[in-house]
């Protein structure tokens, strides 16, 4: 296996001298076995292993079970449990006002695919640098078991009957909105979740990971495509994803042509080891085709679906000074009295 930073996880502390406990959140109040808890664990592990200072992270969410989860990881990071479907706008404002912070957004399928679809699309359109996680279970949990907009057509729920509508594929939406990092994963595949999280946290732009995260209470029957059993049986990873820090040599025992390596903006690398088929993550149309095909093939396709690092981030478009806007002081923020006098001459 590669010496890729995962090793440090077995040590007591990371590069910052912090232990895993320093990345802990409050005890979860979600159901036992909820996919979201598994994702929270991987967020903590990824941030710990990446040695991200927790004080430099902001974690945001909307409303719903998924959106409760930021409370359950990284208590040393400022968090904001915002409004239903409106986390993207809060994240946009926070990110533009302090470009030095690492922004993690956690949303759900109800929060993103229904009430929040507009803000989701516009967040991607602006390419606000952040990690946007969708904990997707196809059902409204906190309001006790209604269909969400990602529920499959024909899906059955105890109190709702049969869903008559086609699902919204959030990875497809992200592709259409020109998102530069689009991935799908499965809470039942924690290793892949963690590697994708690490890659996304090193991506300069909006990174979307749509994680199928089973709801053990309302939508975990075997026939549901959002259940554990279905996911375990049908998961089809595009590749074996590994994130590698810039200073590590890749030591992999593999045949040439079987891996693809992508350098990220901070010189860390993504290593994609070929599994069943050839796949080029830089081809947006191919990515759309892939999603279309996987939808019909009754598989849970996972992995990095699309990567494009050539798009300007919102900060860059806005041509901001390096110092975070939120830290600017009066000497910079308030023009002089002389300037005011000069401006007023135009009104005289």
């Amino acid at each position: 296996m590669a010496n890729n930073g995962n090793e440090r996880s077995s040590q007591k502390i990371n590069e910052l001298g912090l232990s895993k406990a320093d990345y802990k959140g409050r005890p979860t109040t979600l159901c036992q076995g909820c996919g979201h808890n598994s994702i929270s664990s991987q967020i903590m592990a990824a941030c710990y292993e990446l040695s991200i200072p927790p004080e430099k992270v902001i974690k945001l969410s909307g409303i719903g079970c998924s959106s409760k989860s930021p409370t359950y990881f990284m208590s040393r990071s400022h968090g904001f449990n915002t409004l239903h479907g409106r986390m993207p706008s809060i994240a946009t404002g926070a990110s533009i006002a302090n470009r030095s912070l690492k922004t993690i957004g956690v949303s759900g399928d109800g929060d993103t695919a229904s009430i929040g679809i507009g803000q989701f699309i516009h967040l991607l359109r602006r390419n606000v640098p952040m990690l946007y996680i969708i904990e997707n279970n196809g059902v409204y949990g906190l309001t006790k078991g209604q269909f969400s907009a990602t529920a499959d057509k024909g899906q059955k729920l105890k109190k709702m009957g049969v869903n008559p509508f086609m699902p919204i594929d959030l990875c497809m939406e992200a592709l259409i909105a020109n998102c530069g990092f689009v991935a799908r994963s499965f809470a039942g595949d924690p290793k892949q979740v963690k590697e994708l999280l690490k890659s996304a946290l090193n991506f300069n732009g909006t990174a979307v990971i749509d994680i199928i995260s089973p709801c053990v209470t309302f939508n975990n029957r075997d026939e549901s495509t959002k259940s554990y059993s279905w996911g375990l049986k049908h998961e089809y990873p595009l590749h074996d994803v590994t994130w590698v820090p810039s200073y590590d040599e890749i030591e992999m025992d593999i045949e040439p042509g079987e891996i693809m390596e992508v350098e990220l903006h901070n010189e860390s690398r993504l290593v994609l080891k070929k599994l069943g088929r050839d796949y080029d993550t830089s081809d947006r149309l191919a990515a759309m085709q892939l999603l279309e095909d996987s939808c019909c093939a009754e598989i849970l396709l996972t992995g990095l679906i699309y990567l494009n690092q050539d798009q300007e981030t919102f900060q860059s478009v806005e041509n901001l000074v390096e110092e975070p806007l939120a830290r600017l002081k009066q000497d910079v923020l308030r023009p002089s009295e002389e300037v005011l006098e000069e401006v007023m001459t135009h009104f005289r």
Partner: protein
Amino acid sequence: MGKSKIKQEEAADKKRAPSPIVNDFTLVVATVNGSGSQTSNLALVRALFRMGIPVSGRNLFPSNIKGLPTWYTIRVNANGHTANKRMCDLLVAINMTTFHEDLAKLKQGGVCCYDDRLAEPTDRQDVIFYPIPIRALVKEVNPSKELREYIANMAYVGVLTEILAIDIDEIRRALETHFGGREKSIALNMRMIELAASWARENLSKRDPYRVERMPRDEERLLVDGNTAAALGAIYGGVSVASWYPITPASSLAEALEYYLPNLRSDPETGKATYAVIQAEDEIAAIGMAIGAGWVGARAMTSTSGPGISLMSEFAGLAFFAEIPIVIWDVQRMGPSTGLPTRTSQGDVLPVRFLGHGDTRHTILIPGTPQECFEFGWRAFDLAERYQTPIFVLSDLDLGMNLWISEPFQFPDEAMDRGKVLTAEVLEELGEYARYRDVDGDGVAPRTIPGTEHPLAAFFTRGTGHDESAIYSEKAEDWDANIQRLWRKLETARQALPTPITQRMDDARIGIIAFGSTDPAILEARDILSSRGTPTDYLRIRAIPFSEDVAQFIRNQQIVYVIEINTDGQMHALLQLEYPELATKVVSLTKNNGVPISADWAVEAILEAEEESHGE
């Protein structure tokens, strides 16, 4: 100016016209929108302003791009009364479709300059008609086809310059300002103005009494709209994130930010921006971005009007309850619903005060002049950060988009107040931190800014019930304690808000309470009332919650008329709610039809109400 010259002119006038009326008239230009008449109107207003004559310019425009009726009203008054008037003294009639309707608003003895393509009406023998051969004049100037309509509008500028004795050099200077020194445009427009003026000199025999005369000018005063003043105020308040969504009549506020910020707030070395102005996808996102930015410690604002306020409701409640500093400008327009999008109103007093569900209540500043738009523009940020709450600023279309004469903007006399913010060093000393603990007893609990590098700094901001450590709580006692602290905080904030402006007259028996853009109409109404033997006291509210001065004012009056531009008397209702013991002393007088109130209406409304109360 020599007195003898005036006398000569007066003598000459007597032969043709009644005694001259100097610096006192209302001129209405009736045209269609999109025809470029704004340049002409602004040139007239600026020229009059620079002649030292009190003047205002009001645009009554349709929600349309091109071709619908629009009226521009220029009020000139030596005594400084620049409020709206119901009738006009001079009319420039360019729009055939509204000609008769426009004429109906012309006073007896008034003047109608009209495009000679319109047929002179026969039903108004009591007014003076000056037909202007606009088409022939345009032909003579011969501008390019695309400029023809614009240049045509300069014809009435030329004619008015001549018949009203406006200094043509001031018209030129006004155009220089307007065109930013673009000589070709200035020359072309001036050619038309001069041609029309000389045509008038040679062809019109002046039969009307109206004219202007230079007055001593206060060089400090400004001619400016409230939205520009608000934007500059915000810039002096250090705005660093402004997110907005286009809406009349608030757009020009954000556009003024976009216009001034690059010059005023770019890093001198790198040219990079110390601000971000973001056109959001809707008003929900606009306020959301402002809240996100305010949460991480930036000075953040949004600007909107009624429909946007409706959309912002849920976020306004969140910002109030989660205690995030932001500034929200509401440049009010006529509702309900889309209403009259280009007409003024003061109908958002109650909606904004209680914007959000549950026990939400907001702190509001209400500027009444462009100077106050500037002052509240920066002060709002200090208040928002000091009290960790949204600060709403209620302006309206009349104040925001029309040209007012204003006292100069005052450079902020206070340093920026970022409120109670704990740094890593202070946290280290304290050794513990609870976000919502009222350590000072004033309801304002110190906050930490995300990114503060200390393990104790973080807390979880939420719209859900929380204890003093910001941890989710459904406990009744936690809820009670938090709400009580919030109310304590509001009381603390009340003490720091702008106090009302009170003006008294000797022997006043009645009081008037008003707010915002109605100030000029109220001031004029008081002069009229006083001249008719009814002196009044006047209090102009500048903030909600009210200062103790407001209660004191009402207490000292026998009766107080609360005048406002909405139907139900929203400020009146708030006063009754706040001071139930004084509820019977306040009487509501309202007018809400899209047009700024006139002094005449206010006078009549007060006198009628007085009669009624004495008749009882």
